[in-house]
């Protein structure tokens, strides 16, 4: 049986509303109001993409650019951002790759679970996975450039919010996924449905997720509530609210492309280092910048450093 994930999110709304009303009593009114206003004003949907460069060695307080980043098998990563801009839209793995093998390589260790999740839902093959954001860079593990889409680009009935990453593990180091039945054999719809919300009700979902932080804190860093570091050694992963959409995610007016200032400047340092051997990479990024500028000229993209 296949499920309609939007209908499941609608089904959860009454329970979500009750839980939200209950948790409001634990949180200071002004604190809650401020946080909700922040989410309303800054809320956006982002996807982190790779520029193709590796940045490392923060130990001495400096960030270095060390050429093109490879994956775990040593293969050079596809310049994802350039492929998105060439196509004019963010495509999912089914739309991007023709062969099962390429898709498998893309999903890597989550191959089986991702296939199970996508085949559980009627629009699953069209699902694009993004994360809720508030103006920050995205998740470093997923890329060093971030494409940010305003919520207004999405139709109410074309997306859902999930409290956590849909493939999040129950515990660190385990393979058992939180939203799956034992041994990840199927999606546990009963568990998943409790963590879904529609676009109209995403604020109660996020407040519920962060109710303890909101109840305890007086001087809260909203950035940490939206993309919370897991605190693992690499510091590349974040706990985020996932956004699943099955509509076209086009690069158009209102979309922002974000990069970290420190990384961009490290790239300049690398380019200006006399002994560096990054010819191919620099020509690649020059082509990428040219493409970005052409989108800017047509007012389809705004760039920013954070």
């Amino acid at each position, binding site marked *: 049986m296949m499920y309609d994930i939007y209908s499941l999110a609608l089904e959860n709304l009454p329970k979500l509303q009750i839980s939200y009303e209950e948790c409001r009593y634990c949180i200071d009114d002004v604190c809650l109001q401020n946080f909700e206003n922040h989410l309303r004003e800054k809320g956006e949907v982002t996807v982190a993409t790779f520029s193709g460069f590796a940045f490392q060695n923060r130990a001495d307080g400096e960030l270095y650019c060390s050429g093109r980043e490879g994956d775990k098998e040593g293969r050079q990563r596809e310049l994802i951002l350039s492929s998105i801009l060439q196509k004019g839209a963010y495509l999912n793995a089914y739309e991007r790759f023709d062969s099962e093998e390429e898709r498998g390589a893309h999903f890597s260790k989550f191959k089986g679970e991702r296939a199970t999740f996508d085949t559980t839902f009627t629009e699953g093959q069209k699902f694009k996975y993004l994360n809720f954001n508030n103006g920050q860079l995205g998740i470093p593990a997923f890329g060093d450039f971030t494409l940010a889409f305003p919520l207004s680009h999405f139709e109410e009935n074309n997306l859902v919010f999930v409290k956590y990453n849909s493939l999040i593990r129950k515990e660190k180091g385990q393979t058992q996924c939180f939203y799956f039945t034992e041994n990840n054999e199927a999606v546990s719809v009963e568990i998943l449905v409790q963590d879904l919300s529609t676009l109209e009700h995403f604020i109660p979902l996020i407040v519920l997720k962060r109710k303890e932080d909101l109840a305890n804190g007086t001087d809260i860093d909203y950035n940490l509530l939206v993309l919370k570091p897991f605190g693992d050694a690499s510091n590349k992963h974040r706990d985020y609210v996932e956004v699943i959409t099955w509509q076209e995610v086009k690069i158009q007016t209102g979309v922002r492309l974000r990069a970290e200032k420190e990384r961009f400047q490290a790239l300049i340092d690398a380019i*200006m280092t006399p002994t560096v051997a*990054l010819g*191919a990479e620099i020509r690649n990024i*020059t082509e990428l910048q040219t493409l970005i*500028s052409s989108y800017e000229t047509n007012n389809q993209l*705004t*760039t920013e*450093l954070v």
Partner: protein
Amino acid sequence: MTLTLIAATFTDGYGIVADTHGEVYLVKPPFDFHGKEHLPYEQIKSTISQFGFRELNEHFPTWEAVFERLRQIAWQARREAGDSNTTILEEDKKAFFRSIPSGFLSGAVEKMESYLKEEKYYTALFVGEALLENHNLSKNGELFKRVKKAVEDAELKRQEITSRFKNFNPDKVRNPQFNLQMA
């Protein structure tokens, strides 16, 4: 104005373009006005056969549109060939700075100013001069002024250094006393 892209190399995106006055140009990467060479047709004729240009005869309204088409060709060519040449030419570096998008320029300008503060005058000058050729920078008055000022400062410092060493006698370096004075 109609420009005709007569032919292009599908290995690196060089183009041969004719304008409405019948003038013919060889356009070289990175496809801006700095890479546009005006050559007599007779000379280009031999270039066409020598370098394997493919005839296109495509029409474009502006030079920018021609450059965009050549960029596409060059990018595609590089993608297919898998550019693995690690050598960086000065032109590669300049092209990088000329192509920086609007929103990233503030970071580049800040970086250039920091080179100046760190007394890396040649680096600051190189970056600054390349940035001044960035079309996006010319649209941002405040950043443009900052770069112009920094380039002027770096140029002055460069001249000072050049004049300081103008009467430099390498034989004197062997004299420890002289070295101390220099320090």
